[in-house]
Each structure stands twice: as C-alpha cells, then as structure tokens.
C-alpha cells in the first residue's frame, strides 16, 4: 500500500503532460478525475514500458545494433585501455619517486677504514635517512657477479671499483636535494656525488604528456561516440517518420515522441559502455602475464590494476550520458522537421 502511494506521488511530479491546458466542455470533464489519477500512476510504468520497447526494437535489427555497439565499444575501450595503462605506470612511478638517492663515489685512494669513518660521519647528519656503504671489495664482487665481465678483472693489477656510499635523504624539495648533492660532493674523500633523480623527473614529464594525449584522445573518441549515436538515432527517426506524423496528429506531445528515441540512445550508450568495459578488461588480462614476467625480472611483485568499481561505474554512466546527449541532439534536430502537412 505504501509503495503504491509513493509511486503515485512520484508519477505526479514527473508528468506535466496530462494537465489539461485547453478548456474542456462539461461533457469531456465528467469522470475525468479518477481517470486522470490512473493515468498519472500509469506514467511511471510507461517509462519502463518505453525503455523495454526501445530495447526490443534494437533486437529487431540485431546485426546493425551489434555493429553500432561494437563501434561504440572500441571507441570507448581505446582511451580506457590507455587510461588504465597510464594509471599503472603512475602507480609504479609513485613507488619510486618517494626516495631519491645520492650515490657518493669515493676517491680510489680512500681505504676501507676511511670509507667506514666517512659513512659513520654521514650517519650523524640529520638530513639523511639512511646510509649504506659498499666497500671496494663488495663492489668488485657485485660487479663480478652481475656484469659478466668478471674474467677481465683477472688481468687488472688492482681493484678498479671505488667504494660507494649510497645515502637516502629525508623527503625534501628538488632544489634542496641538488644543494645537498653539491654539499656532499665537497666532502673529503668524495670524488663524485650523483643525484639519482633526473630520470624520475623525466618519467614524470613523460607521464604528463601521456596523460594529455589520453585526455585528448578520449575527448575525440567521446565526440565520435556522440556522433555515432546521434546518427543511428537519426536513421531510426527517419524510419519511423510515418508513425511520428500520425502520433502528432492524434495529439502526441514533443516529449512523448522524443522519449523512445532518448531511450534508444541511452541503450546504445549503456551497451557500448558495457562492451567497452569488457574489451578493456580483456586487453588488461592479455597483457597481465607478460607484465608479471617483466616485473619478475626486476624482482618486483607488481600486478596490473584493472578498472576499479568507481572507474567502471564512471565509464558506463559516462557512455550512457553520451548516448542520451547524442539522441537528444538528433531528436531535437529532426523532430521539428517532421510536422503533419
């Protein structure tokens, strides 16, 4: 009972079209009140009915509908895949960006004991979070193990690898980092200090460019979606021209005529968004395995982020909105032209 009351109230708010704007004579007015209340309650069901009819109309031409939906899905999936790829790269970059390091290459003349005391001195500084010393011997061992040039070392009289101290500064601005690097380079025994950050900046600028490209591509393809839906709805209007003419003659309002086409556009948008989402997930699934392998090579247990719930909802509602707008534009352009003559 309560539900029925609610529904009636909702319908009343939704529907201004049953209000008589034209004076009626007594004969037509008699018994109108109960009929009008029924009509009002009916109207909210009518929306659902119109939506269902619009959907079954799409099914009457399955091939054409499928092709349109496929075009929409591809147009939506392309920026979608790029967007989620970008999101993943950003996620990786963010985990690196947090800790820039400075590598201090010590003079070859510095022996292990001196290197150790330098690193202890650095530990006392309060702008450094961590200090790690790689002695000349350790460095040599590492080089031998990783470079594959171990044999060459046999021909050398002495160890060519300098001791290296890697320091990790506390979080600070880029300018401060550069200042710190210069300071450290002046320290006794330090031959060279390398700030290991330039590539992070480069990566960030590259990501910024990529983001712009994705946004622009997204806008272009959204326009394409709009045009495709608009044109499809226009064709559908043309094919129902006769019906529209007759409906207008027997008193259909513009909104009554417009409604099924808006639902058609919304269905196209929804189905396109859904299939686009499917394509994006499929693409991510296909590149997931190679990405895992790649990450494994870097001793990284990185796993690909799919489209989250929020992004999925955004994608589908955005596409539905595009469908509605495309249909609205098409309907308002062509409906006026169809007037009974």
């Amino acid at each position: 009972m309560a539900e029925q009351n609610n529904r009636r109230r909702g319908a009343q708010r939704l529907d201004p079209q049953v209000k008589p704007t034209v004076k009626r004579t007594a004969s037509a007015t008699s018994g109108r009140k109960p009929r009008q209340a029924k009509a009002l309650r009916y109207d909210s069901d009518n929306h659902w009915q119109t939506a269902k009819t619009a959907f079954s109309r799409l099914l009457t031409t399955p091939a054409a509908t499928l092709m349109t939906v496929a075009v929409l899905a591809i147009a939506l999936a392309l920026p979608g895949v790029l967007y989620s790829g970008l999101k993943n790269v950003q996620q990786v970059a963010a985990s690196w960006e947090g800790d820039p390091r400075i590598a201090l290459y010590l003079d070859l003349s510095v022996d292990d004991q001196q290197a150790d005391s330098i690193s202890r001195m650095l530990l006392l500084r309060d702008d450094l979070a961590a200090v790690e010393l790689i002695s000349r011997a350790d460095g040599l061992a590492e080089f031998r193990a990783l470079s594959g040039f171990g044999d060459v070392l046999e021909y050398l009289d002495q160890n060519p690898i300098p001791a290296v101290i890697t320091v990790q500064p506390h979080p600070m601005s880029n300018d401060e980092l550069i200042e710190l690097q210069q300071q450290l380079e002046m320290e006794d025994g330090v031959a060279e200090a390398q700030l290991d950050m330039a590539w992070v900046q480069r990566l960030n600028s590259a990501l910024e460019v990529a983001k712009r490209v994705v946004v622009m591509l997204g806008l272009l393809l959204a326009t394409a979606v709009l045009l495709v839906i608009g044109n499809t709805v226009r064709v559908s209007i043309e094919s129902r021209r006769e019906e529209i003419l007759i409906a207008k003659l027997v008193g259909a309002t513009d909104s009554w005529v417009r409604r099924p086409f808006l639902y058609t556009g919304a269905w196209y948008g929804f189905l396109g968004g859904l299939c686009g989402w499917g394509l994006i997930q499929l693409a991510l699934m296909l590149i997931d395995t190679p990405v895992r392998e790649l990450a494994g090579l870097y001793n990284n247990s990185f796993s690909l982020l799919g489209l989250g719930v929020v992004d999925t909802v955004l994608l589908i509602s955005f596409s539905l909105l595009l469908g509605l707008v495309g249909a609205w534009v098409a309907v308002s352009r062509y409906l006026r032209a169809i007037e009974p003559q």
Partner: protein
Amino acid sequence: MIRFDNVSKCYETGHEALSNVSFALEDGEMAFLTGHSGAGKSTLMKLIMLMERPTRGHVFVGEQNLAGLDRKQIPYHRRRIGVVFQNHQLLFDRTVFDNVTLPLMICGFSPRDAGRRARAALDKVGLLTKEKMNPIALSTGEQQRVGIARAIVHKPQVLLADEPTGNLDPQLSEEIMRLFLEFNRHGTTVLIASHDMGLIQRMRVRMLSLQQGRLAADG
C-alpha cells in the same frame, strides 16, 4: 463548437485557399463540407487541426481561440479532435488493436483501460473480431473503419473526416456515413469533407459548400 470568423488563408505561393470564411457549428451539430478539389476543404480542416494557421481572422474550437494556443499546447488541442483521413493513415507495423490504442497511449491511459476502450470502439465499427490482424490484411472499407475507430476511441468532442468515403463503393460509403450519424446522435460534433453530392443529399444534414475559397452556400 467550431466557429470561423472572417478567416482567410494565403499560402506562401500567393494562392488564397480560403477568403473571408465565416460559419459556426453548434455543439453536437453535424455538417458536410463540399466543394471541388482545390476549393479549400482540406485547408479548412487543417486550420481546425492547427496544422496551419490562418492569415487573417480567427478560428474557435469550443470557445478556445486557436490563435491563443502556442506550439506546446497544440497536442492538447488535437486530443479533443478525432480525425479520419481519406487514406486512413494506419500503421502497418502493428495490429489493428495497437493502431486503435495509439491515441489512448498518447493521452496516458493505462493499458487495461486503453484495451477496454479500444475494444468498445472496434465493436462500434464492427471489427471486434479482427483486432489481432494486421490492417494490411483488411479490405479498404475495413481499413477505413479501423481509422474511424482510432478517431473516436478517445471520445473526442469534434470528429473531422476528410473524404472518408473517397475510395469506397456506394454501399460501403453509406455504411460509413451511418456510423458518423450515430456518433453525432451521441453528441459528437461532426464535420465531413466530401464531394459525393448524391450521398450528401440523401443524408439531409447541413451542408457548407466552398467555391474557390469562399463559402458559397450554407444550409
């Protein structure tokens, strides 16, 4: 119910379809509109339906001056009028029943209510048994009767018919005309455009005859 006040209609081509037409049709009255083709019958009907606007003068339907209705109000105006066309204008992509319920759906009736009214209307024109058929499968006379059922299903105050018997043989024409007479007896104002003089004279109702856009005779 319908009143024309010195109505003239000039088309953009310069052709004057109606000039200074004045007449009044009382509530519940029935009349024929006659004249040769091009005399202005269709234009007069279109003015009542607001498919055209008069160049000069005023048209009233049920005390409402149509000049006062803007584009948005036209649909509500048309819901008071039922129209029967010469070429019946049925939709062949749906059943007879769905053709007849169309005006009710537009007015916002519930499907059950609409169904009941549509069957009543089909019963009146004697086509209740054919409600599930496609109108393309019906004879011309039957198609015209479906068109009439659609025109009267929402109980309009005014019933207009533009050459409703144009394609029919004399016997079918009589049947159709008798239907109109019956609706008129139930209080509907009826205006029928026709050039079938023999038939009109047998019916003995008021006759408005147009000649080159002017009202030549009334009575």
